[in-house]
């Protein structure tokens, strides 16, 4: 039993990495970002990744049953986890869970819907906090306002260093939350853009092939 920390936005890269693990004798048994692995005969399985936004309990049963009927073992993923992991024996002739390019590409569009929703929520939160006139947000972009000690910037020598260091933890406490929110917002927007490109690329393969 071993654990790895890893984050993927690209299902094809994730599949490649998981199959590389199989080649080294590790089969995924718990979904990321903290992946857990169980020992397996090296190279004896093929792992595939699907993405499904939250399903009802009945839909999830039906979904897993369809894969099981088709000879796939459900390795990891819950009905709310989004990503779903399946394995087939490496000797099987058809080791793909998608038989056409468009259904393969739609994986990214489903994920895009979910990350897009989260990004929109963060954006809305930032917008509301900025508009509500909460001074913290406007001062994020004017570093001169970060420190509130009167006359701090006029102090000199050790008096300045002392006052500066004394206030720094308070500045971090005051601005840390909003900074994290802005960073999270940026990360989600970048993920949306990345998945959109992946979706376009995956659908284009079908049109040219």
């Amino acid at each position, binding site marked *: 039993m071993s654990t790895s920390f890893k984050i993927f936005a690209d299902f094809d890269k994730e599949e490649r990495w998981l199959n590389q693990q199989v080649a080294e004798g590790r089969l995924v048994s718990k979904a990321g970002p903290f992946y857990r692995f169980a020992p397996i005969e090296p190279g004896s399985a093929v792992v*595939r990744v*699907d993405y499904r936004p939250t399903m009802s309990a*009945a839909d999830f*049963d*039906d*979904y897993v*049953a*369809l*894969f099981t*009927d*088709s000879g*796939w073992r459900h390795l990891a993923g819950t009905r709310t986890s989004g990503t779903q992991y399946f394995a087939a024996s490496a000797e099987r002739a*058809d080791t*793909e*869970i*998608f*038989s*056409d390019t468009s*259904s*393969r590409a*739609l*994986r990214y569009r489903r994920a895009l819907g979910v990350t897009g929703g989260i990004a929109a929520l963060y954006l809305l939160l930032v917008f509301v906090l900025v508009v509500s006139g909460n001074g913290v947000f406007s001062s994020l972009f004017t570093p001169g306002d970060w420190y509130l000690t009167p006359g701090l910037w006029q102090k000199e020598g050790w008096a300045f260093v002392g006052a500066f260091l004394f206030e720094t933890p308070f500045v971090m406490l005051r601005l840390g939350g909003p900074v994290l929110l802005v960073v999270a917002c940026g990360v989600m927007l970048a993920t949306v853009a990345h998945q959109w490109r992946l979706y376009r690329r995956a659908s284009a393969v079908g049109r040219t092939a």
Partner: protein
Amino acid sequence: MRDPYLPLTETVAYTLLALVEPGHGYAVMARVESMSDGEVRLAPGTMYGALENLEKQKLIARVANADARRKVYQITELGYRTLARDAERMAHLVSLFENTRGDASARDEKEEQR
């Protein structure tokens, strides 16, 4: 206006044909494989998405079944009409193709005479 559903993709056309009789996802996959003489083999990820989509478009509908784990579907009136129109469209294409074959053999004959 032309039917927005047409032309049907191979996956959709075979799935609708397979669901003239009620069946769950894996039954559809097996029927499609045998109907196409092994040419079309649907994978489960593609099958699940297709069924979900066809149900949303009301071309197929769920029917009651004893097995709680597997959803069973059957083609709807709308689905059957759509399938019929696509068959007519393909029959027309086939007849046009047959004509070109006649033309082609006439042309070949002419070339031989020369």
